[in-house]
């Protein structure tokens, strides 16, 4: 029931954004359509997220989501600066390396979220995911030594803890 209510509110907000103005007729149509969608698809949408604590710690969760969005935008711009610096060099120099990282996440929804985070951190790209050994295959753009590799893996662990707080 809680899932259906959440889906209903989200789709109704999306409907008002698309419609562009607020009136009684728009609200009437939107109620019909979003109730239809939430009856059909609510179970599939939140299939793997466990809402264990309910509405008790709602402000804390909102703060966490806000922190994730800030970290996302910061990472996108910082990594883009780093790649564009490679593009305007006179002689582009790389030292690529392919690394496998083991994760502790079990939820397949959070695995998908972490993959898009890995694509946007500095100089890394999620190539593949191995379901048997539960590990990512990651391509780094420049890693010069083993010491530097450890430091970069630690940066991914920070994202992993951040995501495990919200959806897991």
């Amino acid at each position, binding site marked *: 029931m809680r899932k259906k209510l959440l889906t209903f509110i989200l789709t109704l907000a999306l*409907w008002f954004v*698309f419609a562009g103005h607020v009136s009684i007729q728009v609200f009437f149509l939107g109620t019909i359509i979003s109730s239809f969608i939430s009856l059909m698809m609510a179970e599939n*949408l939140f299939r793997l997220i466990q809402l264990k604590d309910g509405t008790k710690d709602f402000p804390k969760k909102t703060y966490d989501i806000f922190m994730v969005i800030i970290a996302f935008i910061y990472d996108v711009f910082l990594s883009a600066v780093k790649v564009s610096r490679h593009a305007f060099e006179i002689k582009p120099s790389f030292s690529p390396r392919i690394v496998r990282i083991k994760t502790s996440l079990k939820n397949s929804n959070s695995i998908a979220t972490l*993959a898009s985070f890995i694509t946007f951190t500095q100089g890394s790209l999620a190539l*593949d*995911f191995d379901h048997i050994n539960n590990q990512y295959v990651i391509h780094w753009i420049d890693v010069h030594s083993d010491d530097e590799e450890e430091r970069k893996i630690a940066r991914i662990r920070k994202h992993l803890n951040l995501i495990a707080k919200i959806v897991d």
Partner: protein
Amino acid sequence: MSRLNERFKKLYKIGLVITFAIFLFFLFYDIHNLDSDGKRYLSEHYISEGVQETGATNLVASVLYDYRAFDTLGEATVILTAATILAFLVPITKATMFGTTFKSIVNQTITLIIPFLAVLGAYLLLFGHLSPGGGFVGGVVLSVIPILLTITYSVDFSEYIFKPAQKKLVENIGAIGFVLLGLLGVFTGSNFLASGQAPFGTGSAGEVFSAGLIPYLNLMIGLKVGAGLAIIFNSLIKEK
């Protein structure tokens, strides 16, 4: 002889491009000079009086579903014919196709964006007379949902969720409903598929429930196009 033949093949392509360019030049020259003559009286009439006569702020929708609605009926019949013939001719046996299999990352993302697609399709269908869009585009966006299910999971899963009989039923509802809505014009004493001239009341332009029959015709075309495209895609992909 063979050397001459090769040279002719090269010159053939270049000559084709040049001929096409000259043809396009004359076409655009004619369109550009259309202003000077008095050939534009019909489009002037549509632009100046279209909103007042039909009640739809989107002028393309007012031409498609009011002035030239009979052409739209013919266009929609093409999709019905294509879907039925494809479902009839393509054999039932399934073969192995060597497509790449997607990992769970793709599946989770597609599960997240399917409600977004449903709301977008419903908006394009129901607001066809107020904004760009309309029945055809809304139907294509709605038919994207079964196509996504087909390419990420399999044909069997997609046909388990949306049954083929249900899709046939929805398409037939669209096809019959269009004609029945057109007959409403005859019962009130005017022509077939008339919405602006028939005494339904056009309403005030700019609101959701206005413009006579146009929103309902949009809805019918959207259901028909969406179900038809889903049937065509699922009958062409024969993956085991």
